[in-house]
């Protein structure tokens, strides 16, 4: 299983803060595509972090069992 986390406006859009998915040998890009379609997040701004590290938009990688993928809206601290 991999864990998907949503924050801020993305948690509001997905109507959940966290969900778990079977790995199904997805790559990161495929997962992002699936998730944005599933939750209709295409028009929302976000970054993605894999295991607490931000990934570039162009970057793709194989996902590993127990990975934590976070969908992060624009930061607003301070």
């Amino acid at each position, binding site marked *: 299983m991999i864990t998907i986390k949503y*924050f801020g*406006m993305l948690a509001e859009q997905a109507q959940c803060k966290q969900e778990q998915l079977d790995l199904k040998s997805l790559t990161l890009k495929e997962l992002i595509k699936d998730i944005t379609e599933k939750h209709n997040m295409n028009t929302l701004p976000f970054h993605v*972090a894999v295991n607490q590290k931000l990934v570039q938009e162009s970057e793709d990688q194989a996902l590993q069992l127990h990975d934590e993928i*976070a969908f992060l*809206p*624009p930061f*607003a*601290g301070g």
Partner: protein
Amino acid sequence: MKKQSVFIEGAISPEFIANAIAKHQSKHTIGGHNIFLGQVRADEIDHKNVAAIEFTAYEDMALEQIAAIREKAFKTFDLTCMHIYHSLGKVQAGDICFFVFVSAKHSKELYAATEYLVNIIKKKVPIFGKEIFEDSSHQWKTNTN
């Protein structure tokens, strides 16, 4: 890397800030402190005023980021102490939500270190803010810099 406590539930009280200052009175190599306090603005947007901001964070990642930021700041600036606090949960307009506190032997380093820390925390740390209006509607805050 040692992770300092950063997040405080609700507003950061003036008493908390006063206590933080008092705790440094026994450190006699310190010659000066500099403090930045972030306060929630009652911005007017579409004829509605912001009453409060509700903060959330990706806490694991935020603490990792802040630990790395602290390490870099200690290498870059000649600081004796550095403390960073940010609110989670609801903070009313006018209350303090962000407290950066640096101490050094001499004043020169303090201004640059404070500016560096405030800017990089806003940019790199995954904290999210829901601006709640007086009529309970809301919008999501985005840092402009």
